[in-house]
Structures are given as C-alpha cells and as structure tokens.
C-alpha cells in the first residue's frame, strides 16, 4: 500500500494461494447442493487443490526473496517453507475428515472451512502489511469458528464455538489496537519500513505497549499462557479432526506471523524480548504440563500437551534474532509437531468415531484388539515426549541448543525438567493401552483406508525426521531467507 506509484498485478507470485482460494470458492456452491455420493466432491477436490498448491509452493523454494504487490506481500524462503508446512497440515486434516465424516453430510462442508482457514494461515505467514495481518488473521479465525461449530446440534460443540468465538474476536481486536501504535510511531503500515523508521531509543514504552498488545493476538492462536485456557475446552467440544487442525495449522501460522513481524521490525533484536518471551515460555510449559498430568480425556490431554509444546517452541522464538540456528529449530519443530500431533489426533478421531467418547478409560487394553492404531498412538506420543530416535527428540535438541546458544541456559534447564515431567502423562496413556486388562465393553477401533494414509504420513513425519533430521533441515535452511 505504498502511496502513488503503480503496482503491477504480480499474480504469478501468489499462485499457491490463488489455487487454494480458487478451489475453496468454487466448492462453496457445490457443497451447498451436494447430496449422496456427490457429497464427496468438495473434499476430493480440496485434496487435489492442496496437492497442486504444494507443488507450486515447492517450485518457489529456490526463488530469491522479493516483495510483491507494492511490497505488501513477501515471496521468500521463510513464507514458502511455512506455506508448505501449512498445506501439509491441511492435507492430513482432510484425510482424517475422509475417514471421520464417512457417510456424514458434514463431509461436504468441512473441507471448505479447512481451505479458507488454511488460506488465512498462508497469508499470515507471508504478508508484510499491518492491514493484511489483521485481514488474514480474521480469515483464519472466521473459518475456524465454523470448523469448531461444525456439528450444529451438539451442545458441547455449541459451547466450544461460543468460547472460541468470544476469545478469538477479543484477541484479534486487542491485537489490532496494538498494531495501530506501530503505525502511529512510524506513519507506515509496511513491516520493513516500520523497522527502518522505528527509533527504539525514545519510543521504548510505546513499542513495549504495542508489542505486548500484538502478542495477545498471537499468543491466543499459539495457545501460549496466559491465553491458553480456551484450548482444552474447545478441543474437547469440537470433533477430533477439527481439534487436530486447530492444534496444528493455525498454531504454525501464528508462530510464522509472530516471527515475521518481529524479525522484520527488529532484525537486530529488541531489548527485553528474550527475557519476556522466556518467562512466557516457561509459564506456558509449566502450566500445560501440570494440567496435562490430571487429564482423563485424550483430547484434553492432547490440548494441554500442545500448550506445553508451544512453550518449548517459544524457547527458540525468544532468541530468534540473536542465534543463527533458532529459526531452523522453530521450523523443524513446528513441522514435526504437526505430524506427531495430527497422528495422535487421527487415532483420537478413530476412537471418537468408534466408541463415541475420547475418555482414557475407553483405551484400556485396546492395544490387544487394535494393534495398529495403538502402535501409532504410542509412537506419536513418544515422539511428542521426545524419546530418541523419534522426530520430537531431534526437534527438542535443536530448540534447547538454540536457547542455550542465545544465553538462556536457565530456560533450557526449565525446558528439560518439563520434558521429563511430560513423559509421565504420555507414558500413562501408553500403559493404559497395553498394561491394563481389556474392558468388557471395548470394541476394536475403526480403521479404514483414509485413516491408514493419514497415519502413514504422520508416522513417516514422526519417525523419519528423527532418524534423518538432515532431510527436514535441508528444507528449513530456506527459512532465514526473508525480505528485508
């Protein structure tokens, strides 16, 4: 939105976004009239669209960083890598939906909201303009309201929608208020120009106020303390595939958006940022892990675990401007987190669809009658716990190394203690699967082709990148290529 000069329509630079948006828009009327077998058209078309978008995104990886559309939108390694992660998350979510909403009318509507939410996430990871940040964050949350409230006649789902809507809308408005101060201090909406014009010396209080307010919005989407309390309620109330989506895709986008905003405006770092974020990180992981210890339901347990995971990732965000490896660590961990978390939520979805509940007691002895889903859940939980040689272990090492390189040794120590405590509740679930006698009313967990595909992808992500972290690090090395 620069003043006066001509802005060319550089549509070639946003082809992946155009594909996702195009498929989403075309499918809106289709989902409206689809009946019977035709109901499957939107979801299959969305899957095709996402695969095309991923192909187009991969093509953009080696491109030199550039800012398009009057420097409001970035095409760079940072945005491209995060777009790939987000598209992969949406793809896996749709595969889970194919199994979960089988023979259910909602199979026509779910993919649309997933597509639009993903589009908002992709934009948030790439935009360079304060106005666009608000717009894309709103696009993301608007579609997410619909995802949470997908099952309209379920009282728990209604309650989850109400909570998510109120908190998300308030967090967005508070964040937008913070963004206006960045404009007021510099007279520009462009992140890089704000970075060049902002005088960190005399405006310290105002910058701190603005960043604090902006953090509210991102902290909400990242489920970071003290704005994490909505996550367990919303995940419990909504359907398992949508809880999985919310725990993975918008969270990755919020981390990407926060990092882009921070690194564009303060490439040299901001005094007080490492300490402030470190305190938030420590509080988040402690609160998440302590609450997870006493959960009786799988989705609530995964919600608190995902809160704790957000705390681990924040360890590297705190030092992102100071340590070379921090960005790679964040990117690596977010990618493997997406796979292991979605893998766990796939099994939660299977369990919920078969048994009708996600309570941990329904898992008693299920390892004997459903060996395959139990093995998947075990591996994903062990990876989340950070057991070698799984991906979560490699990711946690990277995060801890980054925190220590940045001088936050105390935070790394807090992180290690937390990761050790967390093993307890992950292993408790696994013990429930294998060590307990089979409860008489237990039934084999439903499986199906689509679950297998989604599980296969998630397992590959949770295991392969642990054994060969170099494969994923080859992708994350594009992250530091940002528009400046």
């Amino acid at each position: 939105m620069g003043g006066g000069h001509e802005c060319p329509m550089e549509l070639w630079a946003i082809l992946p976004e155009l594909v996702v948006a195009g498929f989403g828009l075309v499918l809106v009327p289709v989902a409206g009239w689809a009946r019977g077998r035709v109901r499957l058209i939107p979801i299959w078309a969305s899957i095709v669209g996402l695969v095309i978008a991923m192909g187009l995104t991969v093509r953009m990886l080696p491109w030199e960083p550039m800012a398009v559309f009057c420097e409001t939108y970035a095409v760079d390694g940072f945005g491209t890598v995060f777009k790939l992660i987000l598209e992969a998350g949406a793809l896996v979510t749709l595969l889970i939906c194919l199994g979960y909403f089988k023979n259910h009318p909602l199979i026509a509507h779910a993919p649309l909201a997933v597509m639009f939410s993903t589009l908002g996430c992709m934009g948030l990871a790439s935009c360079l303009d304060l106005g666009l940040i608000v717009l894309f964050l709103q696009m993301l949350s608007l579609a997410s309201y619909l995802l949470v409230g997908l099952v309209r006649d379920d009282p728990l789902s209604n309650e989850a929608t109400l909570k998510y809507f109120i908190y998300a809308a308030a967090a967005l408005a508070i964040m937008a208020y913070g963004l206006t101060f960045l404009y007021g201090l510099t007279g520009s909406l462009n992140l890089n120009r704000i970075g060049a014009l902002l005088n960190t010396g005399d405006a310290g209080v105002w910058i701190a106020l603005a960043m604090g307010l902006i953090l509210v919005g991102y902290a909400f989407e990242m489920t970071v303390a003290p704005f994490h309390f909505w996550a367990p309620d919303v995940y419990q109330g909504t359907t398992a595939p949508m809880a999985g989506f919310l725990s993975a895709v918008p969270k990755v986008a919020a981390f990407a958006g926060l990092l882009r905003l921070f690194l564009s405006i303060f490439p040299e770092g901001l005094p007080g940022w490492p300490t402030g974020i470190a305190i938030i990180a420590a509080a988040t992981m402690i609160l998440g892990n302590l609450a997870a210890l006493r959960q009786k339901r799988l989705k609530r347990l995964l919600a608190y675990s995902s809160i704790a995971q957000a705390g681990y990732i924040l360890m590297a965000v705190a030092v992102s401007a100071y340590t070379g490896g921090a960005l790679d660590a964040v990117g690596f961990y977010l990618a493997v987190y997406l796979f292991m978390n979605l893998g766990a939520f796939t099994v939660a979805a299977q369990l919920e669809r078969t048994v009708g509940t996600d309570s941990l007691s329904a898992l008693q002895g299920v390892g004997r009658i459903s060996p395959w889903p139990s093995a998947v859940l075990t591996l994903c939980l062990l990876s989340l716990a950070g057991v070698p040689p799984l991906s979560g272990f490699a990711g946690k090492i990277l995060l801890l190394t980054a925190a220590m390189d940045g001088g936050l040794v105390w935070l790394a120590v807090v992180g290690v203690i937390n990761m050790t405590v967390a093993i307890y509740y992950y292993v408790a679930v696994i013990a429930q699967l294998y060590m307990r006698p089979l409860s008489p009313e237990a039934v084999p967990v439903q499986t199906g082709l689509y679950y297998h595909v989604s599980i296969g992808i998630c397992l590959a992500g949770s295991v392969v990148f642990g054994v060969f972290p170099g494969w994923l690090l080859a992708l994350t090395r594009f992250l530091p290529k940002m528009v400046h």
Partner: protein
Amino acid sequence: MPIPLTAYLIVAAILFAIGVYAVIAQRSAVMILMGIEVLLNAVGLNIVSFWRYVSPGDYSAQIFLIIIVTIGAVEMGVGLAIMMLLFRNRRTVQVDKYEDLQG
C-alpha cells in the same frame, strides 16, 4: 485551537477500556459482542487519528480502517449467527450457563 492528537488517543483508549470491560464483565453473549465492536471502534479511531497527524499524505491507513470496519461487520454477522444457533439449542445466551466443558 486545534485538538491535539493526544485527545483522540485518549478517547480511543477509553473506548478500548470500555470494550475490554464489556468483554470480561458482561454475562450476555450479545453484550460481549457489543464489547468487541467497541474494541474495534477504538482501533478505528486510533488508526484514523494517527493517519491525520502522522502521515496525512499516505492513504493506506484508511484502507486499514476499511478492513477494521469490514471485520466488525463480518464478526457481527457470524457472531449473531452463532448466538442464534446457541439460543435455538439451549434457550439462553448467558455465557455462564455454558459450563459443560470442564476438567
């Protein structure tokens, strides 16, 4: 005497405070929605007054305002739709009546 920028910012800050209070203290979901609208209006007033005093030549801040107004309208639309759905199923939109999700 021209009105200084600070005056506008103070009005916006008061609006913001009213909005936050409404979101936190109100029990009716519709009133909370009103609070969110007040919050968005604080954002709008802030950005327009900054535009007028900091960079009146650059109109991009007005686009920001249009985005904020649009978001307010969209949020109202979706929010009221959610409230209607809730009211149809439970006959109340008092937020403290929704307390099934706990643990």
